[in-house]
């Protein structure tokens, strides 16, 4: 199997074994007024992007929050970068979370800080101020999302799409081992959505970062499954020339808090489950 994804050396894990999955869910359950997630088990191998699909309210975002340790499950185990987050104290989780980047649904940028301060937030926490090195890294991250010119603006001065791109820059600035995207294209127009997906694909193919991506938009999911980032052309291009490509993408479909499908795009398209057929149509 040949991969046309750029051959970039994968960063060595700062915590877990290189061959171990970066995220493992084992029989995870959580309920609020009613059960929301039931018996969720899956793992995310290093370098893979798993796309979580499902109707609204099926618990997709919850999975991301559980992986980050922002919520604790009622039952089951969650292992992230070799550490069982379900058993960790909040204080210990802060250290682990420094290896994970998250792009929130509504960007969750700090509205009283400039774009530069938002993107550099983690680094400023370590040094206490914006040094020349941090400024250079901010510019590098903003260049990745093509928003260098917004460095001194406030989030309120940006469009919805630009805010998402800044959120991506904030998530990737420390080159995390895992990226969690919560509906990064939700509520955006198709052109902007495509720009965001191109950035996600670029991050996947250039840095080979392991990712969980929640989306409602099938189009985004299939774009990710059928495109790769061409570094020579510096853009996302379709993988349609007959070569077999491993784009490191898997789909995971949730229904009523349970996983009803896990597999590749091709397997998904061949699936005969009536609910999935209806969902895809």
């Amino acid at each position: 199997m040949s991969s046309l994804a750029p051959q970039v050396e994968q960063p060595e894990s700062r915590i877990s074994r290189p061959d171990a999955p970066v995220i493992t869910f084992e029989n995870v359950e959580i309920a609020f007024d009613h059960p929301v997630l039931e018996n969720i088990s899956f793992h995310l191998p290093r370098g893979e992007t798993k796309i979580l699909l499902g109707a609204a309210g099926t618990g997709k975002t919850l999975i991301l929050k559980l992986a980050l340790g922002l919520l604790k499950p009622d039952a089951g185990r969650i292992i992230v970068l070799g550490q069982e987050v379900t058993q960790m104290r909040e204080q210990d989780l802060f250290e682990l979370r420094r290896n994970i980047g998250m792009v929130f649904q509504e960007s969750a940028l700090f509205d009283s800080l400039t774009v530069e301060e938002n993107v550099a937030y983690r680094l400023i926490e370590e040094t206490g101020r914006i040094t020349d090195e941090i400024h250079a890294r901010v510019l590098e991250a903003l260049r990745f999302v093509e928003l260098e010119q917004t460095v001194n603006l406030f989030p309120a001065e940006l469009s919805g799409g630009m805010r998402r791109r800044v959120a991506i820059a904030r998530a990737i600035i420390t080159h995390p081992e895992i990226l969690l995207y919560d509906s990064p294209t939700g509520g955006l127009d198709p052109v902007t959505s495509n720009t965001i997906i191109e950035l996600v694909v670029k991050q996947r193919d250039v840095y080979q970062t392991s990712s969980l991506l929640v989306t409602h938009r099938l189009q985004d999911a299939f774009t990710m499954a059928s495109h790769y980032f061409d570094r020579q052309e510096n853009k996302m291009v379709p993988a349609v020339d007959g070569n077999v490509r491993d784009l490191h993408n898997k789909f995971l479909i949730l229904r009523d808090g349970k996983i009803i499908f896990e597999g590749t795009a091709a397997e998904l398209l061949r699936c005969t489950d009536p609910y999935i057929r209806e969902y895809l149509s």
Partner: protein
Amino acid sequence: MPIFSPTEIAKEKVGAVQDYSLLAGRSLANIFAQPRYFADTLLQADSVGVGSLPIVILTGFFTGAVLALQTSSTLQQFGSLSLTGKLVSLSMVRELGPVLTGLMVAGRNATGMASELGSMKVSEQIDAMRAMGVDPTKKLVTPRVIASVVMMFFLSIISDLVGLAGGFVISYFLLGLDASQYWTTAYQALRFGDVFMGLGKPVVFGFIIASIGCFYGMSATGGTQGVGQATKQSMVAASVLLIVSDFFMTRLLMGFFQY
């Protein structure tokens, strides 16, 4: 299904008290842990202290003035008008200065903290902070608690002073009392216990105001309506808790200083 379950309500209240206690405890424990956010603390001190100064001065001045005005007729009946300074001084320093300053600061800052942190909570900014490995209680709560405690101490002193000044204006210009008589009786009336009570209470009030404001903000749910609800609840809870704690502290200190 019952409309409400007393058990559920009781569980909810006990859970809220537990969450508040944990947050309040952590906010204090963080003072001794790294990292320390000096810049954030200074910013909050400016907001709580300097920002509250105008309302504290106005409230203190007119409280002192109205106290002198209201008590003058009664004191006059007993021929003790000369004790106006003593009465204003004791009332302001022991009770009204700290309590009214506390209520004013609670109205302005507990609500401000609840709405600010509540907005951050519902827009996932607090989650984003946690996701980036930053402890929101260290970054957001502890600086507000320190700033409120320190600033309440100084604001109460200012309130006491301007309250005495307010009482003096009424005593001198309306009641015709001698200036030195007013200030001498006001000064001589104060014992160590009075000053201790007047300076100890604001420290506790500052802690209550900030911890309650932050607690309601950090617990806000349900969008803008939830933020509004949290803001309202923070004002009510901080004010009630402040007055209740004032009673118990007064009783305790009166016993301690043998009043």
